[in-house]
């Protein structure tokens, strides 16, 4: 008798049929145990939040606006909140009107809705390589043909974007949009230089491009520097996605999209099909947070905290890492991108890392095409300063050991062992050497 473990198989849509259990996802089940120093999830340090203030304003929301809070709302989100979010965007140098905004369930829903709105199966979308793991997930669930543009310390190589656009033109195709995280990119930890922002805007005009600007980390520069928003340069060509997750808290699941009106109108209809409307309760909490609390002081506190943690991590990396390992030096945000010799497969190595009580996100998750086996992402925002030192120590020891093993197995001069510090910018193109180099996502359920 043939046993059918999934009798629904013949019914699945193309986008669901190939979804499979993932080794990496299974390994992440161990990562949240307290024994492990986790640099994996992109989690803000909510220990920095004033919980009494949040408790009070949440109580006020229920007491003063209970019936509204517990009722359905409009699909675009509350106007009062959108007015506040326009202010938040303005702090990040991105102009918008409340009517252009759509409140979403986290920036993640924004990314998914934009993909749903623009991407038919097989459509080309360009993004930085590496790019945000959840962005890869959103695009692959709509079966986009995701192509990556390499980065260096100044962010996306817009010269290579230009080449990619020319190549697409020769193929008779065009990119539906270019997804970019210009400030303190996740996972690269680098920002797009001012010259390249201008170049990107020019390319957008010249090639009739739509840009998806993800401003998740725009207010998290350690020095408070605000990069020029693409939306301020070519407003008609930019759909902007924002989030309160990194400046307030991810638990409220509040983000937004700012889009030209015709796009915004469609997005509202699409979102209504997905979840009708954002929750009034959390919208009211965020609204009150922004109107009654010193939210900018909170952002400042996050910045100072992350600056200290980043410094701790960078100092520890400098002190402990073997010479073959390279990494980016963020001036904001939450992440460091680390590149290892090509012989090391960071997906396979995660198991050993967990046994050594330290965790990261393997680089493959940040690409749609299997690249990144020789890189990994470290999040510095969540772990305490002491744990960061401890975790970097464990990771360095692990990589030392792995390099020694590779030397022992491959022979000392193997090209797989070449260091990466001399390569320009942020690397991570290799397939990685390991035999278990499958499991490219989409999405491993991490932010």
């Amino acid at each position: 008798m043939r046993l059918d473990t999934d009798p629904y198989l013949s019914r699945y849509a193309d986008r669901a049929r190939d979804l499979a259990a993932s080794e990496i996802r299974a390994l992440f089940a161990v990562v949240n145990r307290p024994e492990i120093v986790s640099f994996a999830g992109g989690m803000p340090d909510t220990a920095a939040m004033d919980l009494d203030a949040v408790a009070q304003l949440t109580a006020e929301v229920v007491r003063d606006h209970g019936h509204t809070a517990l009722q359905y709302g409009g699909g675009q989100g509350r106007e009062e909140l959108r007015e506040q979010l326009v202010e938040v965007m303005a702090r990040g140098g991105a102009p918008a009107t409340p009517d252009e905004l759509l409140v979403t369930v986290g920036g993640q829903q924004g990314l998914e809705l934009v993909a749903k709105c623009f991407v038919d199966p097989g459509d080309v979308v360009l993004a930085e390589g590496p790019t945000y793991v959840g962005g890869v997930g959103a695009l692959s669930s709509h079966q986009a043909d995701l192509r990556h543009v390499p980065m260096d310390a100044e962010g996306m190589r817009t010269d290579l974007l230009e080449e990619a656009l020319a190549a697409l033109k020769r193929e008779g195709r065009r990119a539906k949009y270019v997804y970019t995280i210009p400030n303190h990119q996740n996972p690269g930890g680098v920002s797009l230089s001012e010259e390249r922002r201008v170049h990107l805007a020019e390319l957008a005009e010249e090639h009739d491009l739509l840009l998806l600007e993800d401003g998740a980390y725009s207010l998290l520069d350690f020095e408070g520097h605000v990069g020029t928003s693409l939306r301020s340069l070519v407003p008609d060509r930019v759909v902007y996605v924002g989030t309160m997750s990194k400046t307030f808290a991810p638990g409220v699941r509040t983000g937004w999209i700012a889009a030209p009106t015709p796009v915004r109108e469609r997005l509202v209809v699409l979102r209504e099909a997905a979840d009708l409307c954002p929750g009034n309760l959390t919208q009211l909490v965020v609204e009150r947070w922004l109107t009654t609390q010193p939210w900018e002081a909170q952002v400042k506190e996050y910045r100072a905290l992350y600056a200290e943690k980043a410094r701790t991590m960078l100092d520890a990396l400098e002190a402990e890492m073997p010479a073959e390992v390279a990494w980016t030096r963020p001036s904001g945000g939450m992440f460091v991108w680390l590149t290892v010799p090509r012989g090391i497969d960071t997906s396979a190595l995660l198991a050993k890392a967990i046994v050594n009580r330290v965790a990261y996100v393997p680089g493959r998750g940040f690409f749609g095409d299997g690249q990144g086996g020789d890189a990994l992402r470290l999040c510095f925002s969540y772990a305490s300063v002491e744990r960061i030192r401890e975790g970097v120590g464990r990771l360095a020891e692990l990589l030392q050991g792995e390099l020694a093993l590779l030397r022992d197995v491959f022979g000392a001069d193997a090209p797989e062992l070449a260091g990466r510090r001399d390569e320009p910018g942020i690397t991570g193109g290799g397939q990685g050497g390991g035999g278990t180099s499958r499991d490219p996502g989409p999405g491993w359920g991490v932010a």
Partner: protein
Amino acid sequence: MSTSPHVAVLTGGMSLEREVSLRSGTRIATALTEGGLAVERIDVDRDLVARLGAGGYDLAVLALHGAAGEDGTVQSVLDLLGLPFSGSDALASALAWNKPIAQGVYAAAGVRVPDRIVLSQLAFRELGASAVVDRVAETLGLPLVVKPSTGGSSLGLSVVTTAAELPAAIVAALSYAEAALIERFVPGTEVAVTVLDGRALPAVEIVPKGDRYDFAARYTAGRTDFHVPARLDEAAAAACEAAALAAGAAAGARHLYRADLIVDADGAPWLLEIDTCPGMTETSLAPMAAEAAGVAFPDLCRTLVDLAVRDRAAA
């Protein structure tokens, strides 16, 4: 003991197979609870001994996969606590956990196992073994299966078809264990024989829809076709059963275990390994075999409880 024992289902832990273990444990605990038993699920951590000591349990059902749960560690601790448990004892667990050693024991008991070579990290670090890696393919031929010497769920496993791929596959396997087990690839039909209390259940045939039975094929419903009983002729089916029972006896395995085999083109079974704490998830093989033998999942779980109680004196 009363007719309704107080059961601790041990699950989770720090193992790399934590997620699978949690799925097995939840499923077992639910089945036993619905069967009217007082059950608690315990996620294994540093407080385990204290919790077991304070909990007033009559026995433990083990749903642990991977190191510490399957290698004899937990079993030794339970012995010390005097708490009966389901599955193999500490010695048999430790033996089966180490695949190369276990294969030697199975071979000595007359069971056919693939030709193999073990290379440990130490061999590379202290003995310069990289100079002999070339010999592996010469000795065993190609293709080869490279896997960690311990652990399950196909983690860290690769199939290599050229000698050039071997070093990377060894490194990948060494991410999961101290040693890499390199086996001659035996082409044939993949079969699992589950043994319940000394009785071989119908063999399950595994036909991955992709090119192999890897992690995704194991734990994604619909990724693999299973045939129960396996489509083997009578002689081959009997040979598989005999091999599973002989290997299990050689290791001293008890209660419930699963033998993984390949049946080659001549109908001869090759034993790959014995899993002394087989998966109990919705896509796992042991529950499928039990079902085919007329033992529904709740009854299988109940049998584990009864076996633990029956054998408490044996420890």
